[in-house]
């Protein structure tokens, strides 16, 4: 990753195992970290993370590229390089998006395929942004990003027909909103983009806000935590600066800019006293030595020098260094999105979906559990035995809804019906979920248990999503671990 001491060219094969710090030193470091974190909670500059979501081509990456430039995270040289490069392949309209769409295929196709992680500095916030793909085939990656965020920016395309395409059934505007809400995000900023395409029409802007508001409320976003802002990402209107007097937007919009809204986002409460949980979302070669993993600290504090367990498995690794977007950190607390360089470990034992834990406080492994779920707007009802994909952080595994336990009242949670035959749309229910292993001929896919915790123990480790046939059919929280 950029910034992992790229200029240090120590040979790869000499990886001295990092000396493990004595427990007392670790405890001391954790205490220091806690004190600093508490001080930061009341400080000037607070940090949080935000996932950028919305239907394909809404302008998410363009907006983020433009913001990075306006806020000084992308220099002029880089901007010119992106402009030239994209023009050369006949994709100049994606010049801003190139900053985030880094892979060859993304650039060729003009489509974001996986999460890009960047950091934005606003006057009072340090915001980790996770730019998500809008294409429906890459929702697994979007989920991986959303599960690492505490707030969301929804980008919608104001152009006639485009907003509608994203908002109708099967469009990602709806699915993304439901997904981020189900993953615990409660505050959302809606950027109504491409207003240049609709002659800066106020009535179109109002129309879109009015269509979205009821859906947002219905999906569980409180109106006070939902903000709307009119923008045009390509031209950079109303992102970090209010619309200039010459802009038609100036005549009817006097509200906050996008950056004003970002600057007022509420940072999450951090559970730094919980046992350490670090679900891995990416594994790659460290720039200098060792192997690096990225992810979000979902409880506790991670410090260099400690030997951590990798769950599942019997392996452990020593934390060599921690960094965030290139800046090396003395430690990282719950809620931070960081890269962790590990040594003394065979890369084979590190997988996306594994969780780093402290010895003696490891996360449980399960292959079946009960959950309380909300059924989404589905057409085909859920039967006992429905084959699904279970999503938990950055991992998705084949599973089945092995038992329909009861249908619950959505408002008070009381049981309406036991052992229902099917679950239909918008129901709330308690179900049993089991990981699936296939038993037909050939090497059986081992249904390896996955690390999971009840929601009552660790909220971030206890949320699940359920998909079938490329559609999210339900979301919920883990109640009880069975086997």
């Amino acid at each position, binding site marked *: *990753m*950029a910034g992992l001491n790229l200029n240090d060219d120590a040979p790869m094969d000499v990886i001295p195992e990092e000396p493990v710090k004595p427990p007392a030193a670790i405890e001391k470091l954790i205490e220091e970290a806690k004190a600093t974190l508490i001080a930061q909670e009341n400080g000037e500059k607070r940090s949080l993370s935000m996932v950028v979501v919305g239907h394909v081509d809404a302008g998410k990456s363009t907006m983020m590229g433009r913001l990075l430039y306006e806020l000084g995270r992308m220099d002029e040289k880089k901007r010119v390089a992106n402009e030239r490069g994209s023009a050369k392949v006949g994709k100049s309209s994606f010049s801003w998006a190139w*900053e*985030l769409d*880094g*892979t*060859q*295929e*993304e650039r060729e*196709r003009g489509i974001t*395929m*996986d*999460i*890009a*992680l*960047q950091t934005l500095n606003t006057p009072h916030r340090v915001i980790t942004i996770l730019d998500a793909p809008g*294409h429906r*085939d*890459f929702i*697994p*990656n979007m989920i991986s990003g959303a599960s690492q965020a505490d707030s969301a920016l929804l980008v919608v395309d104001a152009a006639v027909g485009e907003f509608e395409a994203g908002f109708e059934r099967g469009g990602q505007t709806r699915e993304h909103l439901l997904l981020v809400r189900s993953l615990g995000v409660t505050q959302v900023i809606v950027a109504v983009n491409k207003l240049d395409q609709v002659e800066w029409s106020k009535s179109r802007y109002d129309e879109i806000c009015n269509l979205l508001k009821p859906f947002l409320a219905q999906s569980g976003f409180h109106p006070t935590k939902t903000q709307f802002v009119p923008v045009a990402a390509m031209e950079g209107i109303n992102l970090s600066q209010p619309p200039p007097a010459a802009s038609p937007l100036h005549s009817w919009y006097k509200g906050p800019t996008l950056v004003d809204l970002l600057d007022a986002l509420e940072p999450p409460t951090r559970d730094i006293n919980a046992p350490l949980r670090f679900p891995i*979302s*990416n*594994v*790659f*070669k460290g720039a200098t030595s060792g192997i690096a993993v990225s992810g979000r600290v979902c409880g506790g504090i991670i410090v260099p020098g400690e030997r951590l367990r990798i769950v599942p498995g019997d392996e452990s690794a020593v934390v060599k260094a921690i960094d965030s*977007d290139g800046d090396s950190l003395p430690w990282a607390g719950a809620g931070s999105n960081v890269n962790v360089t590990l040594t003394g470990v065979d*890369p*084979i034992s590190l997988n*996306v979906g594994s969780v780093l834990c402290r010895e003696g406080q490891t996360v449980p492994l399960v292959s079946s559990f009960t959950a309380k779920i909300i059924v989404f707007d589905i*057409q*085909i*009802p859920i*039967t*006992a*035995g*429905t*084959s699904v*994909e279970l999503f938990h952080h950055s991992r*998705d*595994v*084949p599973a*089945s809804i*092995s038992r329909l336990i009861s249908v619950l009242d959505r408002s008070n949670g009381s049981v309406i019906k036991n052992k229902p*035959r*099917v679950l*239909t749309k918008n129901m709330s229910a308690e179900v049993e979920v089991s990981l*699936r292993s*296939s*038993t*037909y*001929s*050939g*090497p*059986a*896919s081992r249904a390896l248990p996955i690390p999971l915790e009840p929601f009552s123990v660790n909220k971030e480790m206890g949320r699940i999503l359920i*998909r079938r*046939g*490329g*559609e999210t059919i339900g979301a919920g929280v883990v109640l009880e671990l069975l086997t």
Partner: protein
Amino acid sequence: MKLINKHIEKDGSGHVTVCPEDDEDMWHLYNLIQEGDRVRAPAIRRIQNVSTTGTVDSRRIRLHLTLAVARVTWSPSAAPGADSGAANGAAGAAPAASATVEVSGRVAEENQHVKLGAFHTLDIEANKNVRIEKDAGGWDSVALARVEESCVPGRGAEVAAIVCGEGTAIFCLLSEHMTVVLQRLEVPVPRKISNQSSAHEKGLARFYQNLYTSFLRHVPYSSPSLRAIVIASPGWVRDAVFDFIMAEASRTSNKALLTARNKFIKVHVNSPHVHSLVEALKSPEIASQMKETKFAREGLMLDKFFKMLASDEMRAWYGPDHVALAADRGAIGTLLISDELFRSSDAATRKKFVGIVEDVKQKGGEVLIFSSMHESGQQLNQLTGIAAILTFPLDVEVVEAEEREAREEEERRKAEEGEAVEAS
């Protein structure tokens, strides 16, 4: 499978002798042989001879044994390279792995070497005759249909399928009754890291290279019985995979592979997991070409059931008890039933399901027995193994209530009769 001999009495007792040839035949045998049958097949047994001088001489001999079956077990073929990563993906050729059926029980016919009642376990061998004898009622319509189906000469179409995602590929071979997972390939591909993408691209390049090696090793692309090679994936991985395979074929002048070009079918699926096979096989590209194959029919039928569940819940029933009720009322238009249900060790249970099948057929309904060796069959198994599409809507709860009332009525009547008898 070759049918050697068949002799069935009117009462459903009798014997059938067949000669299994491949894995699929083993699967048929596993489904045909039930507890309580007598099976005669070649076996190997250790024999001890005590000579006149008292020395014990032990040797293994080949002989034919007839066993009273106490247990039948199935082990699917264990293809090599279960989880081969970049390191071991390219090593070694595939040994011929095959499925086995193990039959154990007591020896039921005295033999010069083995005493009656001695316990024995034998592996059914390919290309050797096996004789299955059942008691009265044993050769029911479902068993006979399977004998017939399995002995149709000529192998059915085979299809190879590769379900892939970025860094994962599952190689499968589908025949009429079974899906064999040949290999699960996993090559770690680092995910994109902001604006430095070379690690991702290098990982992908390694993945395609490994995938190609596995392809050559596992997919019998030049075999005439291989009808199609399906590449299924979300996103655009399938295009990249296909292009890579074809580019390598040209580069290495692999004529056979180049001529197989038109066997390839690229299909979009929603997930890179093996259960996407069902989705791939019911896609229009494939269903139109292979609608007569068992796996395509199973996939389409399961789909039809779920669609009915969505449009008219009262016409889509599942679960043994509910389906039996629907059958009683002559409401079943299409019955979906898994072969697993007929393998019950309890004869009465099997009889019940055979009864439902016969009943539905007799009333003009359609019956499809799913193979548990296909993903569609596995999904039906999860759904209790039995489901039905009804010809007219019926409310499960109303029917259950009616049944309950009828039962109570019956009991009341019996009780009254009982009182009447006592009183008289």
